[in-house]
């Protein structure tokens, strides 16, 4: 019997990610996996389950709830964590929430800063996590193309793109001082197509919002927004129409544009993706609200 020593690209990516995840579990005292409930997070979470099977994943999952997430996301999150036995932490910037911060009243920049970035930083400080996994990919955005897999953050959680540690082979430098931390991106080398392929191959559950369905939407500044609760401002309420739409990425509902689509299966989604020319983050409102905005947000501590 001759043996085959070839691995498909997906199996190679999987092996690389598992290696990264285990390295973090071994080298850090208090890691956490950040969970955005999106498709990339779903893949990352499955990879963590794979890394420690048949054991339990030795770190918790944390969701930063901006309080403006789609209801279907929250439901999915809770069901998934329960079904797969995850220790789930949910944190929000309750102070800002009580003050009524939201994208409609404060704009996307302030909202994202307070409800996502600040909420995340508060939570990281609260639990004193020394490593945090994120599901970001290098093919997503220009500033991410250069980010390390082990990305060093100072005491203030800031990223310094000019001063990154060299990262070679599969040897990751996990040394930090007290108070500093590392953001870890096990999906760095995955592309959007790889993610969909893997979801299809592994039957990974994802939030149904990714699949096309008749849903109520309203056009706001050129984006198709699906009002998910009664916080939609008055002036848009009579402009709601039903359209067959789906989401390419998931975030806060007022900041995530839907696309009109017929893709109600993974095959159709991939097909649509292959023939579309827009990159996936074009439906994200926050990327365009200031010059070089993702790099700026990342410097400040956003993922």
């Amino acid at each position, binding site marked *: 019997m001759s043996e085959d020593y070839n691995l498909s*690209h997906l199996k190679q990516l999987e092996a690389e990610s598992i290696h990264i995840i285990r390295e973090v579990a071994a080298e850090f005292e208090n890691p956490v996996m950040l969970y955005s409930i999106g498709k990339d997070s779903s893949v990352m979470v499955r990879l963590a389950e794979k890394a420690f099977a048949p054991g339990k994943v030795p770190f918790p999952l944390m969701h930063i709830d901006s309080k403006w997430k789609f209801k279907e996301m929250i439901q999915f999150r809770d069901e998934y964590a329960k079904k797969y036995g995850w220790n789930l932490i949910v944190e929000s910037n309750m102070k800002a929430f009580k003050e009524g911060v939201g994208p409609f009243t404060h704009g996307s920049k302030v909202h994202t800063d307070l409800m996502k970035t600040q909420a995340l930083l508060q939570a990281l400080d609260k639990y004193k996590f020394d490593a945090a996994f994120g599901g970001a990919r290098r093919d997503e955005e220009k500033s991410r193309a250069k980010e390390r897999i082990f990305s060093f953050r100072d005491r203030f959680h800031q990223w310094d793109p000019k001063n990154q540690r060299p990262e*070679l082979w599969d040897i990751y*430098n996990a040394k930090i001082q007290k108070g500093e931390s590392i953001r870890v991106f096990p999906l760095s080398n995955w592309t959007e197509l790889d993610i969909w392929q893997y979801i299809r191959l592994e039957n990974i559950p994802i939030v149904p919002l990714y699949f096309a369905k008749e849903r109520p939407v309203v056009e706001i500044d050129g984006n198709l927004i699906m009002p998910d609760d009664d916080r939609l401002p008055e002036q848009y309420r009579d402009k709601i129409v039903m359209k067959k739409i789906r989401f390419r990425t998931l975030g806060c509902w007022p900041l995530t544009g839907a696309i009109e689509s017929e893709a109600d299966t993974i095959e159709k989604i*991939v097909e649509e993706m292959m023939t579309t020319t827009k990159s996936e983050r074009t439906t994200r409102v926050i990327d365009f609200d200031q010059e070089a905005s993702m790099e700026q947000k990342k410097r400040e501590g956003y993922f």
Partner: protein
Amino acid sequence: MADNNTNNEKMSIKEFLDNDEKKDLLRFLTAGSVDDGKSTLIGRLLFDSKKLYEDQLDALERDSKRVGNAGEHIDYALLLDGLKAEREQGITIDVAYRYFSTNKRKFIIADTPGHEQYTRNMITGGSTANLAIILVDARTGVITQTRRHTYLVSLLGIKHVVLAVNKMDLVDYSKERFDEIVADYMKFVAPLNIPDIQCFPLSALEGDNVVEKSERTPWYKGPALLDFLENVHVGNDHNFKDFRFPVQYVLRPNLDFRGFCGKVASGVVHKGDEVMALPSGKRSKVKSIVTYDGDLDYAFPPQSVTITLEDEIDVSRGEMLVHPDNLPTISRTFEAMLVWMDEEEMDVNKQFFIKQTTNTTRARIDGIKYRVDVNTMEQTNVANLKLNEIGKVVITTSQPLFFDPYKDNKSCGSFIIIDPITNNTSAVGMIIDKVNTSDLFTPITEDDKKKMLVGESLVSPEQWQERIGQKGSVYWITGSDKKHRRELVYTLERRLYDIGQFVCKLSTDSLGLERMSSRDVAIVAHHLSKNGVAVICCGSELDPKVCRPEFSSLHIKTEGDDARDYTSNETVIEPTCIAQAVEDIINKL
């Protein structure tokens, strides 16, 4: 390639996905500057392959909004904008990773800048690459930069090199010019032992021989670049011979399961194989190779698996499972090629951390054998290495490493050096081999030569003291009561050992074949103590008078003994107080 070109065959999305998920992966490095047309070449690969992709999916496309013309309206350089902006702003140019795929393969490009001050970026990007594309401008041919890139590629052990002779349009697609450049390159590259070198006449701008073969180079018989990239066989670049499994994480979900998680660094392991754990040398058999998706019969690199063993043997992170008939080198001292990556230059007196496989320990750079000029490959003697400099060094670690030479096994021959204060990755290295302590590097200075003439050691007692953390000492133990003298000698030896001292007992009675005189003992003891050793001199013949003033003299008091004072250092010990006397000595250290 046949299936690529049959346009009539329409592929369903399901077929496409089924095919896609089986594709393998090629990671490659592009080295060259924007002037060589690197961005145009990458742009073309990225864009033209995407077009190929869409052609494949023609049947699936619902609208025909696709651009049909092959016009030159795309500014490829825009794709590389990130890097360009960085250069204009004068900030660190880094490695940028780009992704594309064809219906044959997925590709990860590590796009690195070409100038000498970016050597570390090229090393970083090349560390995970299977293949390197080195660009030359057909007008200028092989230049210093080409040599530097090729040297770095060979240093990293990249087995496949593509020499992309670009801008052929500007030399009228001249076969003679191409042949001249290739001959020039081959002559230079021969000593570097790169197993696979392919040369392509290209015009990235015009698209010649990039994605499709060009009619303008009828004399060129090879494939188009993309065709080559899609088909080059890199599966054997992994070492499948020497099984090495650095344990990454120990999994103990319950009392019945104890699994060793890790990535197969090299070789192949089968269920039932006899394995040995390093450094303990304990043996067992592989009980199972566990993954989330079920047990495997065998595992190979770069798979991440969990191995369980038949026997309960203790193995922790940083240790290694291997086949007992195929061991790696186990050594604390080795030679390596080191690339300095830190703005702060190397400090040879500093103790660093070294991380190799999953093992982290302390390391010291004993010395630099030479520095390599990355442009000319000339070797120079230097005292330290600065940013982007490469040298052959000798490194000693505090715990032994289990390694293979990098050329045979990248995973077990590579390491990083971490600064203990800044925690920065200061340097990276590739192990050449272990060194015998006798071959250790020693630069001989004029001062040294004077010392050598009078037989003085080149390593000072102070250096020894720093190295082993103890100051040499000599205990000169005399007294005619043999029983009590022995008790003192052995108690002292044991206690010094217990507190971590290097200790050596020298006796006039029992050393070697011939008895030593007191004088001999004093000379040997003196020498050992200069090397930091604690020496206990004893024996029935040991003469108190020979004791040197720098020695501590311990005299066991015997019946009727008078307290004598041969040296100012003498301590007279009552036979009943030996244990206390030893503790006093230890406490004073």
